[in-house]
């Protein structure tokens, strides 16, 4: 493989930082990161299930801000779900879930197994499916181009040198499994994809033995080495996958039956058996498509709580709740956590075809018996008049979820997690018995307002705080940050902050007050 040929060429020592596509990559060598990894006693037995919702989910019809109903109904009357039909989250009566999500509602309200994060996104959101998906899977900034996935980098750190000398006694099983016929880009390591794909865990094939050329020098040799490697891996792991799958039976009766065509439920059903069957595999990837609801996301008749979007979330909800039920009954629930994500949210305003266009931030769900059963973040604020291009701005960077998983679930240190994500970013209290690092110093924001509103050139934002490290950020309608007005420790009290907007276009501006993991939101109109 290329890795080895590189080592040959550069041996014995190369401590220079390595660049990929102009982006400074980690240098191994004697870096502190490597020493930290080497000092690590072992890798824990936790498993992560990533649920990708392809197409860009409409967050405002998923996690519904009930205190914004009047304005929201103006903006999206034709797809808005009747308020009385929206079930509320226990303890958060201003926020509800899509009525089709009965299983997930139960996880939150009764099973204490759901963590919900409001408005997840990143600065300068991208509205292209393909670029936005790349950003989510690689964990890059909006303007950065990375050829590796965030999970691929984690696995490369945890299992260095893969696939050479794998499987071995420490890791006899695949590092990551994508259910279905494709391997997720999130599993792409710096050099090689760390995952394997399966659709039928019992069907494998014995391959012709052949040697993988360790040092390909032409494109043809490179592709040939790749194919041979996959053949070898498939051979090596076939027995353990078959054995794990066949050693246990599904125990939950909550999965969708085959007539429901719920592919996500079918995928998760396989995952539960593989986990309970004893695979040491760390990562499972499943996915469901169809979230790109430009049109007909609700039915024309039968109520706005029915239609394509309802069907999708019904599938997700059934799949996830059955999966957790199965994991409990199979005795592996304490080892399992999962998260949902979609490449972007959708526009606040609906279109005339009962759908929504590409948008910015949206909610993520983290599920499992080990999660902190709470809602993180504040409802987005919806103005009385919403522009057709207006978006939900992000409150949390998606990499805050990633780093929380890496640290709180997989047990990486803050520095190690930063090494994987190539970014040092704060965690969120997603898992139980983890404290938000900054939570103790987080402010409680009890008042948010601005005057005048609408305004001509400037307005004054007023906040009342219990004191703590506080940021105040302003976003334009596309979800881009246009100003950071405050970024310091504020003592307890009421503050008035001037927002100068002479050079900005007219339209709605959204603002978020950020302190630790708590958020408060407001919106204002420049005339």
């Amino acid at each position, binding site marked *: 493989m290329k890795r080895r040929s590189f080592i040959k060429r550069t041996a014995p020592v190369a401590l220079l930082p390595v660049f990929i596509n102009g982006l400074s990559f980690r240098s191994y*060598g004697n870096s502190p990161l490597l020493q930290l990894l080497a000092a690590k006693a072992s890798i824990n037995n936790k498993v992560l299930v990533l649920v990708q919702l392809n197409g860009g989910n409409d967050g405002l019809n998923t996690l519904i801000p009930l205190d914004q109903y009047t304005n929201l109904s103006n903006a999206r009357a034709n797809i808005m779900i009747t308020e009385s039909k929206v079930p509320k989250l226990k303890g958060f009566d201003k926020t509800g879930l899509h009525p089709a999500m009965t299983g997930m509602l139960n996880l939150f309200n009764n099973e204490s197994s759901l963590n919900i994060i409001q408005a997840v996104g990143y600065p300068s959101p991208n*509205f292209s499916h393909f670029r936005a998906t790349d950003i989510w899977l690689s964990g890059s900034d909006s303007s950065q181009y990375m050829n590796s996935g965030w999970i691929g980098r984690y696995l490369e750190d945890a299992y260095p*040198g893969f696939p050479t000398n794998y499987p071995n006694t420490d890791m006899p099983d695949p590092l990551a499994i994508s259910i279905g016929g494709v*391997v997720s880009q999130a599993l792409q390591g710096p050099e090689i994809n760390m995952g394997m*794909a399966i659709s039928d865990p019992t069907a494998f094939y014995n391959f012709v033995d052949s040697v993988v050329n360790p040092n390909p020098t032409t494109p043809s040799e490179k592709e040939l080495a790749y*194919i041979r490697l*996959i053949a070898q891996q*498939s051979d090596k792991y076939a027995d353990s996958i078959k054995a794990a799958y066949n050693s246990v039976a599904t125990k939950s009766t909550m999965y969708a039956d085959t007539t429901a065509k719920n592919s996500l439920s079918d995928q998760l059903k396989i995952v539960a058996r593989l986990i309970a069957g004893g695979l040491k595999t760390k990562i499972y990837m499943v996915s469901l498509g169809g979230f790109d609801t430009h049109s007909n996301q609700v039915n024309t008749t039968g109520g706005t709580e029915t239609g394509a979007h309802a069907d999708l979330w019904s599938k997700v909800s059934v799949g996830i709740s059955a999966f957790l039920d199965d994991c409990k009954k199979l005795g592996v629930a304490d080892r399992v956590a999962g998260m949902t994500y979609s490449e972007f949210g959708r526009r606040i305003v609906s279109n005339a075809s009962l759908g929504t266009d590409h948008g910015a931030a949206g909610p993520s769900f983290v599920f499992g018996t080990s999660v902190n059963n709470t809602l993180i973040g504040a409802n987005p604020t919806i103005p009385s008049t919403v522009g057709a291009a207006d978006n939900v701005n992000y409150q949390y960077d998606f990499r805050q979820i990633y780093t929380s998983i890496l640290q709180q679930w997989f047990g990486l240190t803050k520095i190690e997690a930063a090494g994987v994500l190539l970014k040092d970013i704060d965690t969120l209290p997603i898992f139980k018995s983890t404290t938000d690092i900054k939570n103790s110093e987080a402010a409680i924001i009890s008042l948010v307002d601005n005057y005048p509103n609408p305004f001509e050139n400037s307005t004054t934002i007023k906040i009342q705080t219990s004191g703590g490290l506080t940021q105040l950020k302003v976003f334009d309608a596309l979800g881009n940050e246009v100003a950071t007005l405050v970024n310091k420790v504020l003592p307890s009290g009421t503050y008035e902050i001037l927002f100068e907007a002479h050079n900005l276009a007219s339209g709605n501006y959204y603002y978020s007050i950020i302190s630790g993991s708590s958020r408060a939101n407001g919106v204002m109109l420049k005339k």
Partner: protein
Amino acid sequence: MERRDFFKQLSSTALAPSPTGKGRGQGETPTTGLNQYIGTWGNVQVLHLLRRTLFGVKQSELNSFKAMSMSNAVDALLNVSATQPPPPVNAYNNGTAIDPDVPAGQTWINATISPNFSFQRRRSVKGWWTGLMVNQESTILEKMVLFWHNHFATEGDTIQVEHYMYKNNVLCRQYALGNFKTFVKEMTVDPGMLRYLNGYLNTKSAPDENYGRELQELFTMGKGKDSKYTEDDVKAAAKVLTGWRIDNTKLQPYFDSNKHDTANKQFSSFYNNTLITGKTGTAGANETDEMLTMIFQQNEVAKYICRKLYRWFVYYDIDATVETNVIEPLAVIFRNNNYEIKPVLAALLKSEHFYDSLSMACHIKSPIDFVIGFCRQFEVAFPLQTDYINSYNHWGYLQSLGAVMQQDTGDPPNVAGWPAYYQAPQYYEIWINSDTLPKRMGLATVMVYSGYNRGGFKLIVDVLAFTAKIPNASDPNKLIDNMLELLVPRTVDSAVKPILKAALLNNQTQDYYWTDAWNAYLANNNDTVNKNYCTNQLKLAISYILNLAEFQLN
């Protein structure tokens, strides 16, 4: 070794990603460009050209193209028929569901839209198309139809209306080697595309940005570093395109000026601040042409399309050398020929770069290339086309094989087409994983040994007929060499040939064990003993070749 020791060992050897990322390493990029190739025109070059432009290569095609000059061979491949093939027919009636509007065996494309039979009819489009690929003439047409389907990707499941799925495919055929600019215009108002990207719902009161975005991001401009259109350009494009609708009776698009946004549309500095003046009445439709003219003034369009053609026909890795030596001059040819496709393909396929040894055997077969190519190179017999039920069933089987191997023709994964042609760093490697590779190997073995039997007709490789066309088949050494040359695009490990020979000789050592058996079979093909011997030994040898990793390359 302990983990800790393992890490320590690593730390002294600087285990780091290659600085070039996943693409070509140093010295692996052909430095050749578009100068016409004047080197050897041997089997290697002929097979390379045919493998990349056809689905699989038959011995007879190798023979006939080798008899031409390189330039004539390329011209012959590009000389595609303008006649459209006969349309798909009703081969889908069954005991419980009889299409009342279309007699069995007759085409449904002139019948009204049928929600009840939409699924069956759409499936018949997929079968029909698969049949066209299997029965392709020796031209580039079918590879280009698939190229355009991947480029202007639409999903039949989303289009829903069977007629529009069919028309969309016909449009790709019509413009397969035609004028790209005209093609984009036609595609913009193609009913299938209007449905797929919601163009028909795009109105002044509620602009739907779906097509306006993909027109730029995926169909013309791409996301290369010099493509700098803005989000506002997406919105402006969506407004220009408001008003296009579909007449489901005439099965045609039309322009509804009442739904058109008549305001002026301002584009960004990337488009030289072009202002498209809003127009009322039927003139509103002209805004679409104005916008396409604006888009095609950008040099990036030609480069973007040439990069896609390069990834389709040569290799996925486009580094600075390839960009300078191939893409840029190819884009100039494209623009100088007013966006005609054919001169671009001619220049590429006749170039030194194309026949550079570094450009060879580095494709990984797509599932369709694998499945259709397999049937063509082994000349697997299909039912007579008059037996439309068996024909469509067997074509449908091949189509479903492509689908389980991740290439569902007619229903690509999304509007960007298949990731194998755009997803860095893996590109074609995405086709091959622990799920799909066993399926490929398994299929090859099944088709050699048991075949696929349905309706009393079996698809199976006739190893005797195949071998009879290979030159010098009675000499086991030459047979192995010639068979490998035809089936595998590169040299194989030195261990392979002895294994193949042992298979042909049934582990004996003397060549005459094979030669005598083969000659005896040729002299009397009713001689059961020799016929069985040859069949069994050939099945062993051929299935071994099909299980080589090299067989996945193209």
